């Protein structure tokens, strides 16, 4: 089986409760860049039950083709039927690149599928491009062109590594949500749909779902926020987050937090920014009373504008801040909130 038989960029279009996850559009967006470099197309793979009507949305974000596996076994995410469906799609259609979101679903599905079809998988990528491997010619070693070069942080964000998968196909990666850019939605585009069903035969690997417990949350997803007002241990108490909430309200932002705040039980986990929380890239990120552990910085350093307030002038957060203020947040925030209110009222 020749590697050149494998063609096209495929992305796993994750849906839950028949709502497509934003990561699917991000993968299509990045997939388009890669497909253009390779002179090929982007195919979205949509797995679920009664999901056919979601295909057009994938086309609106740029998918050239949508393969739909629609089966009652795929109603809720379970590792085995999903792994079977995606592996079967790969075996039948032979993509050269297969991208999966590095979500709680994708990081379970990706490894299972890559092990089944015997290929490499690079986890949690933050950058993807097409290039040569080795990157610079090495005497005595063949240079392979048009390889997927997958870049990811490792060692808690202290290092970055670029990985290739030169001898196996597809080249598989899970991609960190919130990092790749979606394309602008083109309303009304119709999908080129191909239906496929590999058949499902439950075996020992099919687990039983006894119960589904959804977290009750009425907050905005911090990954979608344009402005984040993020607090750390330095805020001092859960009550003191009122200062951040006031600022967020004045500027039209959303409150998020560091891991220390979640560990202390002051805020829920879905507001946590960082390596073990969410990666965010808002237009403005306020880091308030956040010292800036490397794991936190890894989750927010791509923000356009970073404003940091901390009483400790040696806090590592200042090393990534565009505008750093050394001072007491309790005294600065109320004044800042009033000034912002006044400025916005004047506009």
């Amino acid at each position: 089986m020749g590697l050149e038989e494998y063609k096209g960029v495929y992305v796993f279009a994750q849906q839950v409760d028949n709502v497509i996850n934003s990561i699917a559009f991000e993968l299509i967006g990045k997939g388009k860049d890669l497909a253009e470099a390779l002179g090929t197309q982007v195919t979205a793979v949509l797995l679920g039950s009664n999901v056919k009507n979601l295909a057009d949305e994938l086309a609106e974000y740029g998918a050239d083709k949508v393969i739909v596996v629609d089966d009652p076994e795929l109603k809720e995410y379970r590792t085995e039927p999903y792994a079977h469906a995606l592996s079967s799609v790969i075996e039948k259609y032979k993509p050269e690149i297969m991208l999966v979101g590095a979500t709680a679903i994708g990081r379970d599905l990706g490894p299972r599928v890559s092990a089944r079809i015997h290929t490499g998988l690079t986890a949690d990528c933050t950058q993807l491009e097409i290039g040569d491997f080795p990157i610079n010619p090495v005497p005595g070693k063949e240079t392979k062109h048009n390889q997927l070069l997958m870049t990811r942080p490792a060692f808690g964000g202290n290092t970055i590594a670029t990985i290739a998968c030169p001898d196996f196909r597809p080249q598989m990666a899970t991609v960190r949500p919130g990092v790749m850019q979606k394309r602008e939605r083109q309303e009304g585009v119709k999908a080129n749909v191909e239906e496929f069903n590999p058949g499902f035969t439950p075996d020992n690997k099919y687990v039983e779902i006894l119960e589904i417990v959804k977290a009750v949350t009425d907050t905005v997803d911090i990954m979608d926020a344009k402005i984040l007002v993020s607090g750390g241990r330095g805020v001092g108490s859960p009550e003191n987050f009122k200062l951040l909430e006031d600022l967020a309200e004045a500027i039209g932002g959303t409150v998020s937090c560091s891991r220390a705040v979640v560990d202390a039980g002051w805020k829920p986990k879905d507001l946590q920014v960082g390596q073990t929380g969410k990666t965010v890239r808002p237009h403005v990120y306020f880091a308030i009373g956040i010292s800036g552990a490397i794991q936190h910085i890894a989750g927010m350093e791509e923000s356009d504008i970073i404003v940091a307030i901390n009483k400790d002038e040696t806090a590592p957060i200042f090393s990534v801040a565009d505008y750093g203020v050394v001072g007491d947040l309790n005294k600065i925030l109320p004044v800042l909130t009033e000034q912002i209110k006044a400025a916005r009222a004047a506009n």
Partner: protein
Amino acid sequence: MKIVVCIKQVPDTKGGVKFNPDGTLDRASMMTIMNPDDKAGLEAALRLKDEYGAEVTVLTMGLPKAEEVLREAIAMGADKGVLVTDRVLGGADTWATSQTLAGALRNMEYDLIITGRQAIDGDTAQVGPQISEHLNIPVISYAQNLKVEGDSVIVERQFDDRYHVLKAKMPCLITALAELNEPRYMTPGGIFDAYKAEITVWGRADLKDVEDSNLGLKGSPTQIAKASDKVRKGSGEVVTLDPAEAASYITGKLKEKHVI
């Protein structure tokens, strides 16, 4: 019940990492610890042992020095330790690592295999699910709660905005989140046992049903093209001002950037 817990010795990344002049990681100068998610997995196994009387074996792959984490696990209450170490296994990616551990597990008896969700050095979360695939058993990853009922496990599996309560027939593999529990400390008696304990050491020849072409650097589909210290965007301005001036400074910058 027989439980095998896969654990990894990892550099403690909390204190930052150090590099050799050639840009490779200076592992020798860094402190090592038992990977936190794996430790939670071990604690879960030890609780099952406390409750149902299980035999807990810890399995690791690494340099001979990785024996230390096996002894730590025994000091916490594990019964046996198996170290897989061999030069030919070095440089393995997650495919080759999972092949190696699956090869070792084929020589072991288990009802339940527990791994951590991910290791803090690689952060891939891939080895657990890949082992389960090679052994053709079910996997439940991201476990935040775990109990045994007859021949099945009942597991709370965490997702972004929900959790599923899942039931799987044993044998199966669970990947544990650090949030699963608060691992116990080593006991004085346990430390004594750990000193005396004989660690089983396996090499390449002891792995069952694994091709050489799936092991070590040569058996790894992924290859490193480039590795480097993270380049950060660098700091901007840092000012120390009294509160009113500090607020005006920030407001001014936000106006300049057309945020407000």
